[in-house]
């Protein structure tokens, strides 16, 4: 098996301080009821046989450490290799651009040096997709590129996704934001380990830059090739694409792309009971997590673990995160309700389909 090293830059927030990510990095944002965004990058690596993964931590790491623990749920609690918690920058991590600040890599040169892996796969934890990295490695080796970046044609305008200017499959530069049809950079690339260390030496003086920005003058001598990923991709950069990408999972055809048999997205295990649908509940086109108890009406929604929907309560077109209680007669519509909220009887949380209402995380008493 190819010896690979993984690095996840989990220290990024969004440049929009939405209540959802005020207290968390994007990496630990809940996704589809039971997952966190970081699960996708981590599982992609583990599913490709990578057993040494360095995770560059955000300054507000509590929720992320809580989630990943020793890495056991991803088979990364190992004698040799395993999960390495690496220090990361606190500043510059909500900027636009790709998510590979040189100083983060510079800080952690020792981790790269101590490895004997031939290649390193680096990924941010800001996208949701399930990808077979073996194919990426094959393409990288076949093309003889110095760096192979994972890309996809942009489906629409997105100011937060990094764009690449290309000539065929050869990358000539990066830009902030993409227009429909342009090449989106999915914040993931493979590079020879020794070459990465060499690049870090080249750019030592400009370590406040992102790796792909720092290379601006060097794209003619560094062979950067694109590798198009064809599966489902969701960038998680703002509340709109966060909401949409969750709702996409109500289409079984799309969710089958993200959760194919044989490439499990692993996550922290909890001892939740199965969900309980009581007599009188009405649930349609929804995702319901473990330990939920439903007596009311739920449609077009995603419920996190341990959510209670009481008799006569209505939840429509919403994301309700773990341990919320929607009391009798309450109504939640076009909303994102962060964890631990109790929506009192008879009250209403209502947004529009275009602009979901966000109820922040309830504070811990």
């Amino acid at each position: 098996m190819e010896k690979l090293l993984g690095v996840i830059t989990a220290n990024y927030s969004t440049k929009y301080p939405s209540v959802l990510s005020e207290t968390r990095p994007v990496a630990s944002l809940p996704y589809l009821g039971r997952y966190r965004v970081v699960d996708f990058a981590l599982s992609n690596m583990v599913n490709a046989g990578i057993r040494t993964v360095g995770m560059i931590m955000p300054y507000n790491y509590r929720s992320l450490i809580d989630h990943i623990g020793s890495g056991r749920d991803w088979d990364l609690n190992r004698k040799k290799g395993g999960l390495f918690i690496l220090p990361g920058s606190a500043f510059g991590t909500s900027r636009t651009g790709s998510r590979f600040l040189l100083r983060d890599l510079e800080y952690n040169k020792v981790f790269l040096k101590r490895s004997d892996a031939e290649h390193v796969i680096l990924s941010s934890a800001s996208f949701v997709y399930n990808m077979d990295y073996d194919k990426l490695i094959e393409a990288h080796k076949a093309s003889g590129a110095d760096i192979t970046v994972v890309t996809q044609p942009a489906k629409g305008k997105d100011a937060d996704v990094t764009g690449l200017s290309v000539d065929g499959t050869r990358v000539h530069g990066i830009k902030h934001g993409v227009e429909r049809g342009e090449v989106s950079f999915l914040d993931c690339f493979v590079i020879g380990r020794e070459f990465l260390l060499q690049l870090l030496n080249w750019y030592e003086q400009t370590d406040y830059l992102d790796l792909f920005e720092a290379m601006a003058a060097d794209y003619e001598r560094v062979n950067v090739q694109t590798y198009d990923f064809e599966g489902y991709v969701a960038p998680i950069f703002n509340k709109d694409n966060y909401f949409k990408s969750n709702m996409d999972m109500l289409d079984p055809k799309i969710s089958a792309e993200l959760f194919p048999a044989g490439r499990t997205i692993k996550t922290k295990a909890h001892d939740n009971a199965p969900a309980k649908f009581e007599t009188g509940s009405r649930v349609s086109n929804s995702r319901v997590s473990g330990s939920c108890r439903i007596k009311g009406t739920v449609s077009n929604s995603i419920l996190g673990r341990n959510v209670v929907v009481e008799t006569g309560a209505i939840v429509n077109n919403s994301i309700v995160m773990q341990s919320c209680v929607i009391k009798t007669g309450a109504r939640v519509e076009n909303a994102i309700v962060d964890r631990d909220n109790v929506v009192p009887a008879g009250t209403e949380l209502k947004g529009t389909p275009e602009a979901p209402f966000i109820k922040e995380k309830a504070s811990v008493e």
Partner: protein
Amino acid sequence: MSKRECIAMLLAGGQGSRLGVLTKEVAKPAVSFGGKYRIIDFALSNCANSGIDTVGVLTQYRPYLLHNYLGSGSAWNLDESEGGLFILPPYATQTGGAWYAGTADAVTQNLGFIKQNDPEYVLILSGDQLYNMDYQKMLDNHKRHNADLTIAVMPVPWEEASRFGILTTDEDEKILKFTEKPAEPDSNLASMGIYIFNADLLVKTLEEDAEDENSEHDFGKDIIPKLLAAGKRLYTYEYNGFWRDVGTIASYHETSMDLLGTKPDFDLFDTEAPIMSNAGAMPPAYVGPDATVDDCLVGNGSSIYGKAVHSIVSTGAVVGEGAVVQDSVLLPGSEVKAGAHVVRAILGENSVVEAEATLGSSDQSVDIAVIGNDAVVAKEAE
């Protein structure tokens, strides 16, 4: 509970032959139950929740799935560096070795394990019972009585008492008499097959019993009567919660149905003493646009497009469009295809009921329909 004060020996070698096709390929403790669990989860979780961190699991019948499922014990927080979960299968010796010939014999063959751990007390458990018990309370009771052996009992209806091993006690819970299936019971306290022994006495008694050619090497039949006859201090510990030994298809089905309803007899949602399991990560259940789900437990990774009423839809099970599932248990990965009709049935793991096929009968006088793991029910020819 301090370290090594008490270790558990969990008897998990039984076939559960009356469960028919459900135990054709797996031991009874490994049979799926309750939407996401396997039967052994309950005893293992009780151990973990009671602070017992050293558990020997004695396996024998079709152990592959069971061993695979137990793994390192980490799912039950039993991957301890000093203690933890130990799988104890029958083994070969210089003189040949033997299968476990009875409940007591299974423990006798693993006295080495007990001696090595050198506990004060040994808790003997069965891996095929469903209940939520704090063994610490039972141990406290054992110590309070300064007992040699404590047997967990539960009151059963008097008219059913003659089906059980019945213990007659004095006012202070001291056991006066043990009668296996008495015709005319003078007590309704049934043995649950859960014992706490003083370790020294257990070792000595089992070593003696091993030499006894007339013994069947069974705790109920041999060990308890011997200790009673020897005048040892035997006490009961009364338990009044939910407890089932799902011995038959009918009782498996009935116990599954007991998990449903507004106030179920057995609360899987207990957060103080959660039932832990070694479940894989699957996405939340999906309920389709035209689905009806009424009084059901629904596991992760399942999809319901049709109608599910008063049923258990386990991890990864599928109810197709227009299909109807009622009063049934769909074990993990089973699929009821479009337009099929399943009533009062148990579907084995990864089994399939083909489109438009039917299985089971709503007629209460007809036995519960059951199909084994990977079985396929085709549509009957017109």
